[in-house]
């Protein structure tokens, strides 16, 4: 497996979601062109019934208040048979929002003709992790976060994505900025609330500069103070559920951040800091390293990191330019496949290879079983880049168990023909294993678990 992959394999796997039958031959004619053509293409997502984050927050808040009122009116009596009570409980449940989002994510991956934007969305969504482990407030809007703050910006400016993320309710909830008050703000003074550094620190450490980015603890505190007042409107009204700057929570006065004084009024103070760190050379290196590690290999090739970092800086963080540099770099077309497909991507790749719609299978449970619950990372750092974890012994066997139950649903597929249609070049051992299998189903299971399919 240490040979250079074919162009079609790079195009459909390293920068794609795994081929659907026909996609390999489509990409083979001009593999780089196949990928480059997708840059900037941002198809509208299919499901129109998904709600925006402010709608979701409004609905849940309103239903929560009605539930409270109902419980107050009928205190002591059993409400479990009350239809209105049950309906309200359904509205409050975060699963009501996150489940359709997860389904749509699988569906979009399964059916996409522009897999690059899906892959970039997964990458950036992981880079700016929010996790439903935080609780129902984040869970309910985790899918909306990806649609609103990530996906629209993957070919835009990095600084715009950083700003959209930092102002999104999901992130404000996830990293506690909605409860962070400036010590000298009116709220801080009156209600003995204080500063929470969580969002400020993670923006610097994880989202922008990186842990070696040259900032100090004092800078974290200064930035966290600048971010106070960035909240989510929870009072009833038209703006409920949207980002809001609340001066009463904001720490008054200038802050000194990385040797520079920021004395802008209100919200502009933190915006100015975000704009500064978004185009910082440390950020360029950090992002370049993560991109290379995600798409090529971990640890990333230093020369590629240098080149991507250079493009990032020259273009002021134009992510279309950075993406173009990544997918046209010779290193991207030469590195042997070494990245284990994460569970979500693996499930999607299997669905595409077998042409099995995700609606017919418990796909989310499968990905969770393999270790990756969608929007369920265990820390703000997201899923590990050292992805051997995905090929842990137990996870590997779970994948095989699952694959063997799924392949019968594909019907009578000719395994070798399908191998050529979705992978192209097969190693001799894999070709033999598929050809000599006991049954078509076994042959397909071996194909989908082969190193060629597991790695990209």
């Amino acid at each position, binding site marked *: *497996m240490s040979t250079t992959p074919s162009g079609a394999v790079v195009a459909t796997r390293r920068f794609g979601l795994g081929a659907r039958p026909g996609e390999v031959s489509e990409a083979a004619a001009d593999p780089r062109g196949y990928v480059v053509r997708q840059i900037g293409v941002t198809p509208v997502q299919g499901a129109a019934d998904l709600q925006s984050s402010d709608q979701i927050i409004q609905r849940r808040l309103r239903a929560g208040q009605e539930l409270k009122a109902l419980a107050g009116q009928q205190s002591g009596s059993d409400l479990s048979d009350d239809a209105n009570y049950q309906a309200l409980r359904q509205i409050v*449940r*975060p*699963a009501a929002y*996150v*489940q359709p989002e*997860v389904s749509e994510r699988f569906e979009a991956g399964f059916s996409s003709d522009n897999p690059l934007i899906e892959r970039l969305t997964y990458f950036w969504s992981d880079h700016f992790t929010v996790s*439903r*482990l935080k*609780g*129902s*407030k984040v*869970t309910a809007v985790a899918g909306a976060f990806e649609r609103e703050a990530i996906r629209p910006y993957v070919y835009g400016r990095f600084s715009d994505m950083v700003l959209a993320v930092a102002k999104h309710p999901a992130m404000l909830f996830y990293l506690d900025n909605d409860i962070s008050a400036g010590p000298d703000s009116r709220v801080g003074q009156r209600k003995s609330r204080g500063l929470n550094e969580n969002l400020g620190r993670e923006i610097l450490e994880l989202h922008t500069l990186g842990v070696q980015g040259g900032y100090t603890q004092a800078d974290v505190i200064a930035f966290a103070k600048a971010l106070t007042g960035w909240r989510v409107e929870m009072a009833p009204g038209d703006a409920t559920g949207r980002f809001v700057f609340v001066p009463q929570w904001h720490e008054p006065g200038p802050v000194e951040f990385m040797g520079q004084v920021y004395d802008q009024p209100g919200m502009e103070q933190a915006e100015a800091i975000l704009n500064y760190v978004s185009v910082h050379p440390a950020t360029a290196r950090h992002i370049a390293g993560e991109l290379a590690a995600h798409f090529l290999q971990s640890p990333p090739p230093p020369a590629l990191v240098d080149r991507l970092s250079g493009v990032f800086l020259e273009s002021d963080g134009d992510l279309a330019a950075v993406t173009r540099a990544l997918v046209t770099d010779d290193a991207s077309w030469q590195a042997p496949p070494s990245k284990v497909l994460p569970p979500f991507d693996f499930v999607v790749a299997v669905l595409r290879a077998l042409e099995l719609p995700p609606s017919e*299978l*418990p796909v*989310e*449970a499968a990905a*969770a*079983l393999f270790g990756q*619950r969608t929007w*369920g990372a265990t820390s703000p750092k997201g899923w590990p880049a050292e992805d*051997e974890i995905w*090929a*842990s*012994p*137990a996870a*590997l*066997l779970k994948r*095989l*168990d699952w*694959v*063997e*139950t*799924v392949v*019968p*649903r594909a*019907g*009578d597929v*000719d*395994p070798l023909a399908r191998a050529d249609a979705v992978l192209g070049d097969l*190693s001799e*051992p*894999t070709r033999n*294993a598929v050809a000599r*299998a*006991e*049954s*078509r*189903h*076994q*042959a397909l*299971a*071996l194909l989908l*678990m*082969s*190193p060629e399919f*597991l790695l990209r």
Partner: protein
Amino acid sequence: MTDEFDGRLRRPLPRRRFLQTSAAAAAVLAFGTPAWAEQPERPRLVVVLLRGAVDGLAVAAPVGDPHYAEMRAGLTLEDGIPLDGLFSLNPSMPGFARLFADRQAAIVHAVATPYRNRSHFDGQDVLESGYPERGQTDSGWLNRAIGEAARRGGPQPPALAIGASLPLILRGPAPVTTWINEATTRSSPGTRERLLDLYKQTNPSLAEGLARAVELDATARSDAELKATPSRRNGFVEDMRVLAAFLRESSGPSVGVIDSDGWDTHVKEGPQKGRLGRLLAELDQGLLTLRDGLGPVWAQTTVVVVTEFGRTVRMNGTTGTDHGNGTLALLAGGGVAGGKVVADWPGLAPGSLYEGRDLQPTIDTRSIFKAVAERHFGLDGSSLDRVFPSSGSAPPLPRLVT
């Protein structure tokens, strides 16, 4: 507020929840009381597909053949159970031996479909389609037989396949259904073994991981087995138990199809103590579990056990056998005219072998199928011809079913 995520319980495979008990089976399969529930004598048919090509000579060994010891060197049976003057049964199948002695089991030997090449996929296509060649149809003979029966005798209950997929033998216009047994959704030992072999050749770290996981799984499994009842020990036996529960119902299916994998014994065949011996023991236990589960219905049941083709007569260089032709079929149940091995024995002399290597087939598998279909579905000659096109050379085998 806690996160109420419960994705694992959400959106289950619809079929998994389909039926939980045999009582529910009756309700769901029947939607009221169907015509067939009023026929207490209604026969049952079970087809067991052994995938991977069974070494028939290691199941019922022609120990009386003068060339047996020489040609089967390395694979001969010790302590075989004598069936008649020529054949002994593999001692891993004591249950089948008892059924045979009670005339509730029979063997047809030197059997093959018309297919003479050696690809598993194509061989299974021919076996299940009932056509003389592969790729001629998208339907299976069993489905077409059910269709013919409905045309002649009125509605038939939907046939049932155990497993996620519908095997070709049951595909077609007649109504059928499938059942996945949740207790048995592990990958098969054969597939695990092959994948491990592939990893060893291509990616040592994947090989190491998979080997470790399989080992742990085996440990966890044997620990669980200590606490479980014997019938839960493995997938096939458990599937047979479930199949029996469905078939026993007065309004349940008349036809069941069940798969068993892992018979492709190229390496270390182990006809008695090894891999094949274990598979045969499992098959044996499965047949007894089916009989016990069916209770009185066993008397009107026919079980047909078939495989896509046989294996080489001689042992290969890795103490196994390679893809061949002639093999055997097993029959069991109260519907079988049992206690005999039916064969037009071609002999194991080197000159008698097909292409110098395989047991020469002398009975067409379709002759067995046609005998069973004739009896079970009450089909006449023209119906049988529609079910098995171009099968004039393979008349129903006489005196096989009661």
